[in-house]
């Protein structure tokens, strides 16, 4: 098989972003017209042949979206033009069980992203979403036999209507924020996972999100239910072509971890520099369960993302590990929310950000405890590394506590690469770029070492790519 030469938009400086290529779109099955109104939402619901309650859910959410003002905090969204986007694009007929049945162009894209290879080596299941729909899906047979469900959310709505109806929108109501409302109105694709009581999935389940069309809006909707004593590690990766005008990615991820369950949700996002990434992620963790967000934010034009954990019952633990890398023209406004709703719950946030070439990395975090939440512990550590004088880092920690009987620790540090460190490494034969990359890799190492080996390697490789050609 020969690899097609990718279409690269050199004139706008794809630079070192290696996933900036895009595929032709002329064989697509369906593409909605530009813009957003009731008709578009009705059309999406109709194409998907949805039950009436979902159509109503969408239309109500659309009203909410139009009513809510744009947030005035966070990043600059003045150029984000909702009426210039495509809200629903279907590239192929449906979800395939074999890569051979996925249309050539799309399959080649996933080959280049290394997904089929990873699937063979270390994954328990895969979903590949291309534009608005999932084009490929797999799950190891023994897991299916144990009752594990791993499907796209559209199929789940058809095949497990009761489960979906019971939980959909219960963790993140449409009215939560403007972008949650937008997603609720036009959502398509995303993963639906149900892990039955006591089932522990050893290898990760992975979803891969790819935007291909210019001015595309991708609105996947993910719902994960980890039943009592069960465990799962879910991983998502994201990339998009580099275009001169903007795309939008606005996902909603809802997670429930029941008594004694465990869920780890790892994101390695590497969007191109023209993507607005405005995502709402929230989990509810019940008694003695553990919810972990591992959030790697690279790329995008603006990311606003604050994965939240609501600690609902005693013994629940929440942990967020977040890495943000803001390069040229990028603003990473990322962080974490921990809401202690019950006594004897604990939370931990570790955030590391790197900014360079004029990039801006902000940590925005909230620790909240209701008046019932006594004997809780929360520990927040944010470290920022700024690589040059025109880059920027900010910390916005918010604490809302209605309780005296709890411990909250917050530490923040901002550092620069010390001249002495560079000299030391360079005097051992490292180039300046290599030396800086090594220092940055070391800076995030405490988080990266938490990742399974394959993802740790991927994370370090992405950081090295970001560092290349940047110094000197």
């Amino acid at each position, binding site marked *: 098989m020969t690899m097609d030469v990718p279409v690269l938009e050199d004139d706008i400086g794809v630079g070192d972003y290696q996933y900036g290529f895009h595929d032709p779109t002329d064989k697509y099955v369906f593409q909605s017209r530009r813009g957003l109104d009731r008709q578009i939402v009705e059309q999406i619901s109709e194409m998907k042949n949805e039950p009436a309650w979902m159509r109503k859910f969408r239309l109500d959410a659309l009203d909410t979206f139009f009513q809510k003002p744009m947030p005035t905090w966070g990043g600059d969204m003045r150029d984000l033009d909702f009426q210039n986007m495509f809200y629903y694009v279907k590239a192929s007929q449906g979800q395939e069980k074999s890569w051979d049945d996925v249309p050539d162009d799309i399959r080649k894209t996933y080959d280049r992203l290394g997904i089929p290879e990873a699937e063979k080596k270390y994954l328990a299941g895969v979903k590949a979403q291309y534009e608005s729909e999932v084009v490929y899906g797999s799950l190891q047979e023994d897991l299916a036999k144990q009752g594990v469900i791993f499907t796209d959310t559209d199929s789940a709505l058809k095949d497990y209507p009761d489960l979906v109806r019971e939980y959909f929108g219960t963790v993140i109501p449409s009215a939560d924020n403007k972008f949650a409302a937008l997603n609720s109105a036009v959502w398509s694709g995303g993963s639906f996972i149900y892990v039955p009581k006591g089932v522990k999935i050893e290898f990760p389940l992975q979803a891969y999100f790819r935007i291909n069309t210019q001015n595309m809006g991708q609105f996947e909707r993910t719902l994960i239910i980890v039943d009592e004593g069960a465990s799962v590690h879910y991983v998502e990766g994201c990339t998009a072509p580099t275009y001169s005008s903007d795309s939008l990615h606005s996902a909603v991820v809802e997670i429930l971890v029941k008594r004694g369950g465990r869920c780890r949700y790892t994101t390695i996002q590497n969007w191109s520099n023209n993507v607005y990434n405005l995502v709402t992620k929230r989990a509810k963790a019940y008694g003695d369960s553990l919810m972990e967000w591992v959030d790697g934010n690279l790329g995008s034009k603006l990311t606003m993302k604050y994965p939240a954990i609501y600690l609902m019952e005693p013994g629940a633990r929440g942990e967020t590990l977040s890495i943000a890398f803001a390069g040229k023209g990028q603003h990473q406004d990322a962080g974490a929310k921990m809401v202690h709703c019950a006594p004897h719950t604990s939370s931990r946030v570790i955030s590391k950000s790197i900014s360079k070439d004029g990039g801006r990395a902000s940590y925005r975090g909230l620790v909240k405890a209701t008046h019932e939440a006594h004997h809780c512990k929360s520990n927040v550590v944010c470290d920022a590394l700024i690589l040059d004088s025109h880059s920027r880092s900010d910390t916005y920690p918010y604490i809302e506590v209605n309780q005296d009987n709890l411990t909250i620790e917050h530490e923040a540090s901002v550092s620069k690469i010390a001249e002495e*460190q560079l000299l030391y490494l360079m*005097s*051992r*034969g*490292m180039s300046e770029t290599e030396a800086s990359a090594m220092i940055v890799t070391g800076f995030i190492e*405490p988080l990266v070492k938490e990742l399974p080996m394959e993802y740790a390697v991927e994370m370090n490789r992405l950081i090295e790519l970001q560092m290349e050609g940047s110094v000197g």
Partner: protein
Amino acid sequence: MSSLLKITDLHVSVDEKPILKGVSLEIRQGEIHALMGPNGSGKSTLAYTLVGHPKYEITSGTIEVDGAPLNDLDPCERARLGLFLAFQYPVTIPGVKVADFLRHAVTNIRNPARKEGEGLIPMRDFRKELKERMEGLGMDVEFARRYLNEGFSGGEKKRMEILQLAMLQPKFAILDETDSGLDSDAVRVVSEGLQKLAGPQMGVLIITHHERLLEYNVPQFTHVMLAGKIVETGDASLAHELHNHGYATVRQRHPTEAAEEQEREKTAPAATAVR
């Protein structure tokens, strides 16, 4: 033919303040030189300048290896040409494992033309070599997995410098007080280690206030620095004499430099404090 490191009339300033005021020195591969001198006389400054520390500005004079000038090369290029400094105060690089760091360093030094991203030396060979070297220096192999100098004791840091020297096999090694802060067993290990490493392929400049390192590695030349100049050069017996009697007689023999030293201490009383 053996290589020559040649320093000619070197003047160096830090933040516009002149520190070295005309240093000339020639070191051949295979030779051992000792550099002594009171605190603050400029020994570390010379060492940093040789490896290309950006803070140390050469205002005049040259550094050459086999006639090729190094003045304008960055520290990485100099290292790849065979210069090595065992730092007086090695820095910590958090999160970077000793083994990963050394594998990169060894690859670059042995393959000076290597570009970023090109392959590293094979893991198996590297591990084996590293293990042997560590055992040779009486180091626990566990150190390879630790973060570079993080939480290392003073003596452990110094040993780590010698381990790097052993792995990188430079043409010219500068040891800046590698023997200070070591207990007497460690001094012996380091001294013996250096003795084994320093063969005809290595020129060594030992900066020291002690004698042990020089007992195992007897210098052909001893230089004395005072107020940014090398004021005397002798053989091993000079090192011995300085060690026993201090610098009073040197100051008497070189009143001009001694006066300059006095002058500087007055204007910057903290300058000679150990950093």
